[in-house]
C-alpha cells in the first residue's frame, strides 16, 4: 500500500530522516517505535506532505506522492491524527467532525459515520456544541481520532494516540484501532511511545533511532527482542 524509499527530510539546516525505507501492506497494522525526537512524527508529516521530502520516493499504491500537496494526499485516502491533536479550538465538536469529512460528498455516508463515532465516544455526542479548545486533553484526543475517521481513510496515520489518556480509555482506544482495522479494513500506521501495547495489536513493527530505521520485524518477534525490551519496553 505505502512504500518509503530512501526518504530524507529535515527542517532548515537540520536533517532529521536519513535514508528511511518502509513498507506497509494493505490491511496491516504497522507500528513505528522509537525514542523521543527519533523522527517518528516527522516520518508521518512527510508522508502527509506537510514536511517536504528532500530526497527519495514515497509510493502510495505504486503512485509517487512525495511531490503532491497535502490536500491531494488526503484526497487519496491518507489521513493523519497528528501529535498534539490539533483541534480547531474555536470550532464546535460537531464542526470539527464535519471538517474531517471535508473532501467527502456522500451526505448519507457522512451521517452514518457521525453516528458511528458518536457511538464510539459518547462524550463527544454530549459535548457536540462545545468549542473544541475547551475540551480536556483526553476528550480532545478522542475528537482528533474521530475527526480522522470521518474521512473514511484507507490509510490511517496515528501519532501517539494514547498520550495523556486514562488507562481505561487507552485500552479502549487500542480496541477501537483494532476494530477500525478489521471492520473497515483500514490500513493503520501507528506511532507510539507505549510500545508495549502498540506491538500487541500490530502485525509488524519498525524501530527508528536518530532518523534511521534500525530494526524491522514482526510484532511478536520485536516484543521478544532483548534490545527492544530493554530500550522501549522497560523490562
Amino acid at each position, binding site marked *: 500500500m505505502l512504500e518509503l524509499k530512501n526518504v530524507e527530510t529535515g527542517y532548515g539546516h537540520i536533517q532529521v530522516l536519513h535514508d528511511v525505507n518502509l513498507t506497509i501492506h494493505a490491511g496491516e497494522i504497522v507500528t513505528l517505535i522509537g525514542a523521543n525526537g527519533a523522527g517518528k512524527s516527522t516520518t508521518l508529516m512527510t508522508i502527509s506532505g506537510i514536511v517536504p521530502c528532500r530526497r527519495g520516493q514515497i509510493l502510495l499504491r505504486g503512485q509517487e506522492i512525495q511531490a503532491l500537496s497535502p490536500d491531494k494526499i488526503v484526497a487519496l485516502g491518507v489521513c493523519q491524527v497528528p501529535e498534539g491533536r490539533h483541534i*480547531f479550538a474555536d470550532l464546535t465538536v460537531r464542526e470539527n467532525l464535519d471538517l474531517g469529512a471535508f473532501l467527502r460528498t456522500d451526505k448519507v455516508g457522512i451521517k452514518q459515520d457521525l453516528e458511528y463515532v458518536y457511538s464510539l465516544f459518547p462524550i463527544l455526542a454530549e459535548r457536540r456544541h462545545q468549542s473544541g479548545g475547551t475540551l480536556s486533553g483526553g476528550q480532545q484526543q478522542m475528537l482528533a481520532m474521530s475527526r480522522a475517521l470521518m474521512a473514511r481513510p484507507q490509510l490511517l496515520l496515528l501519532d501517539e494516540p494514547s498520550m495523556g489518556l486514562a488507562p481505561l480509555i487507552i485500552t479502549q482506544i487500542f480496541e477501537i484501532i483494532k476494530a477500525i482495522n478489521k471492520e473497515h479494513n483500514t490500513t493503520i500506521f501507528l506511532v507510539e511511545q507505549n510500545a508495549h501495547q502498540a506491538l500487541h495489536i500490530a502485525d509488524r513493527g519498525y524501530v527508528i533511532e536518530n532518523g534511521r530505521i534500525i530494526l524491522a520485524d514482526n510484532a511478536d518477534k520485536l516484543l521478544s527482542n532483548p534490545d527492544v525490551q530493554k530500550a522501549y519496553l522497560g523490562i
Partner: protein
Amino acid sequence: MDYFIELFCSGLTRGSIYALIALGYTMVYGIIGLINFAHGEIYMIGAFTSFIVATVLSIYGFPLAAIVVVAGVAAAIWSSAYGYTVEKIAYKPLRHAPRLAPLISAIGMSILLQNYVLLAQTSDFLPFPELIPEFAFMEPIAHIIGSSDIVILLTTTVVMLALTFLIKFTRIGKAMRATAQDRTMALLVGINVDRVISATFIIGSALAAIGGLLIASHIGQINFAIGFIAGIKAFTAAVLGGIGSIPGAVLGSLILGLTESFATGYISSDYEDVFAFSLLVLILIFKPSGLLGKAETKKV
C-alpha cells in the same frame, strides 16, 4: 429631533462605508492574522478602476445602467487581482516568518501601491462621475438622506448577510474558518490552504472595490491618497467590533460612524476622531476582544 435623525442617517452612511472596507480587513485578519495595511490601497484602486472604466464608457456614450454594472464588475475584478497578487508577492513568502515581517511588508506595499497610482495616473483630485442618480421620489427627504446613502446602506446589509452565510454554511466558509484556526490541521483534513487564503483576499478585495465605487460616487472625487484614512478607520471599526467577526465588523463600523456623526453634530467636529479613538480604547478596556469578538479560549 429632525437634527437627530439627520445626524443618525449621516452616521449610518459613514458607518456603512467603513463596513464595506472593514469586512475585508476582518476576513484577512481572521485567516492569516495579519493587519493588511494595503487593504485601504486596494479600495483606492477599486475606486480608480471604476473611475477610469466609467469615464471611458461615458465618453463613448454608454447608458448609465451599463456604466454602473461594467464599472462595478471591472473594479471588483481588478481589485481582486491586486489583492491576490499582493498576497502572493508580499505575504505568502512570509508565512513562516516572524510575526511582524508581514506587517512591515504590508506597510511597504501600501506605500508602493499609493505611489504607483500616483505615477501611473495623477496626484490631482479627479471628479468621479455621478453613478447613482438622485431619484425624484426622494426629493422631499433629500435634505436628510440622499439616494447614494440608501444604496450604500442596502449594499452593506446585503453584503454582510451574504458573507455571514458564506462563512457559516458553505464549504469554502468552513475551510476558511478551519484555516484560520490551525493551518497544519487544515492541510491534514484536505483543505487547499493556499487556495483558501487566495479566495479570502479575492473576496475581501472585491468588497473593498464595491466600497470604492460607492464611496467615490457618493463623495464625487478621488485621488491616490484616499485609501489611507479610510483604511485606518475601517480597521479601527473592525477591531472595535471584534476582529475576525463579520457581524462585528459591521457593528463596529456603524458605531464608529454614529459616534463620529454625533460627536460632530453635538460637540465639535474638531475632535471627532479623538472621540472615535477614545471610544475604541474604552470599549477594548472593558471588552478586550471587541464587541462581538470571541474571547480568547484560554485553556491551559
